[in-house]
């Protein structure tokens, strides 16, 4: 018995090496190293945490799209290609976008603001309320996402979302990443890099990328923990929710809009 166990162990190590090698070929080495240090979650998520983002628009730079690119890379959105025969203009309206960069001008003051806009992880998410099958759901830890095994692709959640945070997959995909399954006919949106959550990684791809560019405009953390960096930031800076009038108590807050 035990003999066999060790045999499996040895075998596994060999294969892990190979897997890591394959990983290297595909992505930056730093990522691979981190991937090997994960601690997968083994108990169901609960309500003791509420994940959220705080965005300091003052720090968000014009012309930068690092967070958008990082999100695309992390979630395999950049592996999506226009189907053959699609008009580029149409394709631009149909491809999936989980986070976008928006530049605004105040009509009164003329001041310009930059910000990334993604799913706001509402506490009372309209997208969840309307979903007929319950595929659109809010995880106990506050992440709003789509269970794509029960999503029928009706797009009602897209009608309901005040932030246009969701995308419908208009074409067949291939080359998905193992940790982000996604495909034709379902709706998806920013899920606060849920696989990173479950494997115990500290941050989201966008926040990490923004930090790497040196802007540090995105702060990720636990809103339920008063001592977390994000809670302290929210306590110290005046922030607001977009479309506060709807009283959705969003998990993504903006400073300086």
């Amino acid at each position: 018995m035990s003999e066999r166990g060790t045999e499996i162990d040895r075998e596994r190590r060999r294969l892990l090496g190979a897997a890591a090698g394959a990983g290297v070929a595909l992505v930056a080495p730093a990522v691979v190293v981190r991937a090997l240090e994960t601690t997968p979650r083994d108990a169901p998520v609960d309500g003791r945490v509420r994940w959220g983002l705080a965005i300091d628009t003052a720090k968000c730079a014009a012309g930068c799209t690092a967070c958008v690119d990082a999100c695309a890379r992390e979630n395999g959105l950049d592996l999506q290609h226009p189907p053959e025969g699609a008009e580029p203009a149409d394709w631009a309206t149909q491809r999936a976008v989980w986070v976008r960069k928006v530049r605004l001008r105040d009509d009164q003051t003329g001041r310009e603001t930059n910000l990334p806009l993604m799913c706001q992880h509402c506490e009372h998410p309209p997208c969840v309320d309307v979903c007929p099958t319950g595929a659109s759901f809010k995880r106990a830890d506050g992440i709003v996402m789509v269970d794509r095994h029960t999503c029928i692709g009706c797009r009602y959640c897209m009608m309901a979302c005040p932030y246009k945070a969701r995308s419908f997959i208009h074409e067949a995909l291939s080359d998905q990443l193992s940790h982000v399954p996604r495909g034709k006919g379902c709706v998806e949106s920013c899920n606060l890099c849920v696989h990173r959550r479950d494997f115990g990684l500290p941050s989201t791809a966008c926040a990490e990328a923004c930090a790497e560019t040196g802007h540090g405009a995105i702060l990720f953390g636990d809103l339920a923990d008063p001592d977390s960096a994000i809670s302290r930031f929210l306590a110290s800076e005046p922030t607001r929710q977009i479309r506060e009038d709807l009283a959705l108590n969003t998990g993504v807050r903006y400073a300086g809009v």
Partner: protein
Amino acid sequence: MKRIVYREWRLAPARYWGILGVLAVMVGAGLLAFAYMEHEGHWVTGMNNSVVWGTPHVFAVFLIIASSGALNIASIGSVFRKPIYKPLGRLSGLLALALLAGGLMVLVLDLGRPERLVVALTNYNFKSIFAWNIFLYTGFMAIVITYLWSMADRKGDPFIRPVGVFALLWRLALTTGTGSIFGFLVARQAYDAAILGPMFVAMSFAYGLAVFVLVLMFGFAEDRRPIGARMLRRLKNLLAVFVLAVLYFTLVYHLTSAYGAKDQGLEGWLLFDGGVYTTLFWVGWILLGSLVPLGILYHPVRGAEAPWVAAACVLVILGGLAALAVVIIASQAYPLQLFPGKTILESGFLDGVGGQPAPYHPTLPELLLGFGGVGLALLITAVGVRVLQFLPESLADEVLPIDEETIEQPVAKAA
């Protein structure tokens, strides 16, 4: 009272199969369009991440609310005790079923994952109006079938009225529910209005009746059965009243919108510079869909002539499609107002840079799918009247029951 005699639709086989053939081609084209959309993915449609519901939904919603409206005739006959409408009850029920089936077909075949229909039927989120609608639709089918049974079977006689009342209530719930699919979308300015519910009810009455009258006239003309002047007058008066009601709710809706400060942008856009949507609204919905038919129906001479009444019905139907296109598509094309007091200069995701509406160009597969639904509805009707006794033998004046024609307030009674 004289018994109403119902007869199967007895056309010459060549003619009948010809009609079925045309309808089958319509349905077939719809199915092909579906297969194409399903195989390629939705990128072959004009729908996109901003306008997520397009032409198929215009057809689907039209058919569904028309379905509810088509049953109105049966309700007036048995619930509101207007014996003159009694002979039409069965056709009214059949048409309600058929239109609903057509609408649901379009809706289901447009899903991103239609093969998961079972998922939709087994997983419910009871907070969702949409999920409720699934119940409302399947329930409606069951109730209408019971209703039809009660009208057709002699044992059903005592149940006609209770079932009819139940069907009426259910029907109002169904239309309100369909309207609420939009009405509860707080996110979108155009929808965030309680009046959408009653407006949909009025629309359903008008469109359902228009479809009903057309089908009735066609079915009767083909089989050379008579429709008396009295019946025609009743039907066209009823239609006129319903069209007026739609017009009234349209007015109230836009007045309240224009009054509420936050929606003024939307109103201005839609009514004046929404491009094709403005045209759809004024020319399609208001002029051709409401005013011209009203003119015909209230015309002292034309209003009594069957071809003109049929023309008015066609216009009401076309106007209805235009109205729903405005309600469904224009409202999505108008950008979400995320940052009041600010102008969007640049966005990675079509957020209405400089107030631009989102683009939407319907494509052929979408249209074919929509027509496929219409085809299915008519196909079911055509088969139904052929194999079962749905159509009364005659609607000539002398066979119709006497009715208190002088007091004509169908709306008050129907609504």
